[in-house]
């Protein structure tokens, strides 16, 4: 099964970085959609079905916390797995994210293998018991 992903980040550079990391990490990657803020993400999700959302918190118009609330309040999207990729480091904010039932959290900067681990855990992909090879890059 192909994994379709939505990346929500106001930085085009970060969206490109995450896409690159996904292509290195996820063998069955399907469509990768991009949105630059929460409003654009909701519009994208109205038109496309995805298996996973990777989102930033600090974004204009509708930020990541507001987007999470909208997703959880929407019966069609309430169980959609969300991984937050952000600079946020406060315990209070991480507790808030936990309350929203996020599937994972990565703090920027992250390494491609960290993204792979989080995605594999969520999508229950098998690594065939082999150790994961670091691919050298830092993000």
């Amino acid at each position, binding site marked *: 099964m192909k994994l379709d992903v939505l990346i929500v980040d*106001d*930085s*085009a*550079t*970060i969206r*490109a*970085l995450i896409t*690159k990391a996904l292509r290195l990490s996820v063998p069955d990657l399907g469509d990768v959609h991009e949105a630059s803020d929460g409003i654009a993400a909701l519009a994208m999700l109205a038109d496309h079905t995805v298996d996973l959302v990777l989102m930033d918190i*600090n*974004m*204009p118009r509708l930020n990541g916390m507001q987007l999470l609330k909208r997703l959880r309040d929407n019966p069609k999207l309430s169980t959609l797995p969300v991984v937050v990729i*952000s*600079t*946020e*480091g*406060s*315990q*209070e*904010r991480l507790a808030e994210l936990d309350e929203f039932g996020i599937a994972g959290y990565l*703090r*920027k*900067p992250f390494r491609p293998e960290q993204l792979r681990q989080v995605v594999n855990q969520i999508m229950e992909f098998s690594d065939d018991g082999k150790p994961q090879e670091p691919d050298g*890059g*830092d*993000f």
Partner: protein
Amino acid sequence: MTANLKNLTAAISEIVEEFIMMAIEIPEPPPAVDVETIGWLDFSGPRQGRITVRCGNALASALAANLLGVSPDDAEAGAKAGDALGEVLNVLCGNLVTRVFGSQQTVHLSVPTVLPACKAQAHRDQPGGHPEAVLEEACVLTFDDQPVEFRLYLWPENL
């Protein structure tokens, strides 16, 4: 070196070495910065303030190139130079505020603003982002031998 300057340079070093993978130095005396691009980001938490960055266009393009894994001459690096500088500022500020205030404190970050220096009128009028902003620290470093200046402004405590 003050605690804030130590935190600022430590955060910059960590981000540049781990995120951008460029060689960082703090040369003495500090070299002149060819200010062609200016970026800033405001934070609010136990204290409010602003972090600014000023550098040449070539360095901004080099940041984008390193992050994207393309040549600095690649059109994509030039197109995403400002965006990349803003994201570096975002990651830097997230790292810095955790160092300064600790992870028990919630600090809100604004969306970074990056503009060509010639268009950054608001920055020239009020570089610290507030009429009573105090320049707390400033440092000039080089990333792969290209100079860049960072400033940390703090706003009055009773805001």
